[in-house]
């Protein structure tokens, strides 16, 4: 029987993630979103197709998710990132009951039961609980975002960052630097500050073990450790935390196709076009 392929396209605020899956293989591509790339999700998709050695017509179903999901003309369906993260985590880490997703622009808490969402909370109002907080402060410290986690583990005497506003916190860390405070101690303080905000939000859900961490924030070991300290137990991490939403999107696409087949229904698909999105169409 010929393989069926499903694509998940997760357009986040900073990164665009595409996965192509069949029953046994998974081909991922991650590219930056950025202001100019937002309308060019098709390029990331083309890259994934090339990597998987497939043509676009061979993809049975495409699901788009993330902030930019509406702007994907080649998707058959748009599904919220909450549902896609839940499906992705349910597949990758079936023991997880709570998901904490730390994205570039927002953070979310998701409560799962049998791999499906039963409740959620989101912070999309304040950058201080998101990856943006670390981006801004890393820039102020002259440290690359990738190095922040590693450096924070070298902290000897973590400082308290009292400002909860991202802009003012960036000023505060510069002031701390000029006081001669060691860089790792400042970075550890930043991780503590963001972990406190995220944990405070997710606690609304009555956190249940196991807890999975996803999104770009889950790639930062310093933030992971700070959150684990709040939780009081180790968190689960998927192999590639950035891909959970895209994997979930592909899996939900597969679910849709399978459900239609089981019911003997004709699959409704969009008139999809592998072109860039335009605000004029």
């Amino acid at each position, binding site marked *: 029987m010929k393989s069926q392929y499903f694509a998940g396209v997760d357009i986040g605020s900073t990164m665009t993630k595409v996965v192509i899956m069949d029953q046994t293989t998974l081909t991922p591509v991650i590219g930056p979103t950025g202001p100019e790339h937002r309308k060019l999700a098709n390029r990331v998709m083309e890259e994934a197709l090339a990597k998987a050695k497939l043509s676009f017509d061979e993809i049975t179903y495409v699901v788009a998710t993330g902030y930019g999901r509406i702007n994907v003309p080649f998707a058959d369906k748009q*599904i919220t990132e909450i549902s896609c993260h839940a499906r992705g985590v349910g597949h990758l880490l079936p023991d997880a009951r709570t998901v904490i997703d730390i994205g570039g622009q927002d953070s979310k808490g998701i409560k799962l*039961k049998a791999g499906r969402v*039963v*409740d959620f909370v989101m912070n999309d109002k304040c950058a201080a609980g998101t990856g943006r907080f670390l981006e801004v402060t890393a820039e102020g410290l002259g440290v690359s975002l990738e190095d922040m986690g590693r450096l924070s583990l070298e902290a000897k005497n973590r400082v308290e960052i009292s400002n909860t506003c991202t802009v003012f916190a960036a000023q505060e860390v510069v002031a701390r630097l000029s006081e001669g405070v060691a860089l790792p101690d400042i970075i550890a303080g930043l991780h503590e500050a963001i972990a406190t905000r995220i944990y405070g939000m997710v606690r609304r859900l009555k956190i249940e073990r196991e807890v999975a961490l996803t999104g770009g924030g889950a790639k930062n070991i310093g933030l992971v450790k700070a959150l684990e300290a709040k939780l009081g137990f180790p968190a689960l991490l998927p192999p590639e935390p950035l891909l959970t939403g895209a994997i979930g999107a592909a899996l939900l696409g597969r679910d849709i196709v399978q459900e239609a087949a089981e019911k003997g229904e004709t699959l409704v698909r969009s008139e999809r076009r592998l072109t860039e999105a335009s605000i004029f169409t």
Partner: protein
Amino acid sequence: MTEEKKPEERKKRRTATEAAASIGPMVKAMITDVQKAREEGKPIAFTFIACAYDEIIRAMDIVPSWVENYAGICGAKRDAQRFLERAESLNFSRSLCTYALCGLGFDSWREELGEMPPDAPWGGQVKPTVMLGSGQILCDPRNKWFQAAQHYMPDVPVYDVSLPYPAYADDYDFHETEGYYVKHIVEQLRGLIDFLEEQTGHKMDWARLEELVDLVDRTYDLIVDTYDLRRAIPTPMGTGDAMNTMVPIQFMMATQQAYDFFTNLNAELKDKIARKEGVIEDEKYRLIWGGGLPSWFALGDFNYFNSKGAVFPVETTYRTLESTRDFDIDLKKIKDPLEHIAWRWVKTWTYWYDKARKRPGSHPDVERLIQYIEDFKIDGIVMHEAFSCRSWHVGLIWQLNHLKKIYRDMPSLILESDIIDISSYNEADTRARIDAFIDTLEAVKDR
């Protein structure tokens, strides 16, 4: 200059009922009537919703000017920002109640110009004869707003009515103290009448007051009967409409017009139920608006919920009344109209107390949610945290968590924005949250 910016014209929002659609012109007429009263030299009183003394103002032929209503109109027309910015320039903090900021910004501007600010929504809010505060524990602007407004209108006197009600506690029988509260409120109302007679020269018409007290009782009962019709499946009316039909409840109480409005709405809902005509054709999820004032500039979000198959048959917001028939005292036996008003006020607040005591660990606000969830067959809860309204919104998350603890877990959504400050609102993010909530409802229903 920001003060000269004019808002864009917006499309009219779709309502399910004709009654709700008729509200816009009624509110406009209400504002025009106050402007006309000013021209004719009639006494005008700035006042607040749920003030309990509607009958007193009407019986004394004093024209009420509802300041929260006018701020809400500015918000709904997306024209509040210039008044908020003006209040901020007068050193009022942006984190204060934005209704109050809008009103203070507007009134100070009008007084400075000696005429209405340019393009004032619906002709503007006129200078009052008196300002009537009404503190009720929960909302500090109800005392402080008019005090601040006197900076710009020093010749307009303020009278502050204190309208407390018993606190709730598991181990304390509020019945023992209700009478003391009534006594206090009656004294407050007598003081109010003395003040109004002195300031306006209008004498209380006691016979008229008794008639209006009876009219309010009947209107309360009719409103509860009418809103209970929304239990029908599909529901014939949602919270989006109720944010319109709150107008006769909050701004027209003690008038025949309010009673007639609900008589007509009652008939309209019965007709829709007979024809099985719902807010939407395919009702999938029934939600409760479980607390929080709405974002007046974003009422279209209710239509967005509808487009996803969700309806709101019930809400707690602006349902600031109970049926007088259900009280544990017979109001009709209380002949003194002021005592009657005071008992109605206290009983409206304590109505849920006895019910809450029957469920271990419950609380009146939570018990009310539970009762509505059962009566209206609710699948999920939506609340709105308006950042500038601390007094009404603090405790919402606690209520939600407590409900889940003592009753059952159910999908919930917290929206975050403001009542009239549009800078707090992001339509894309709000709708992304609504989409995710709908996904959650679907997942829970499928289980």
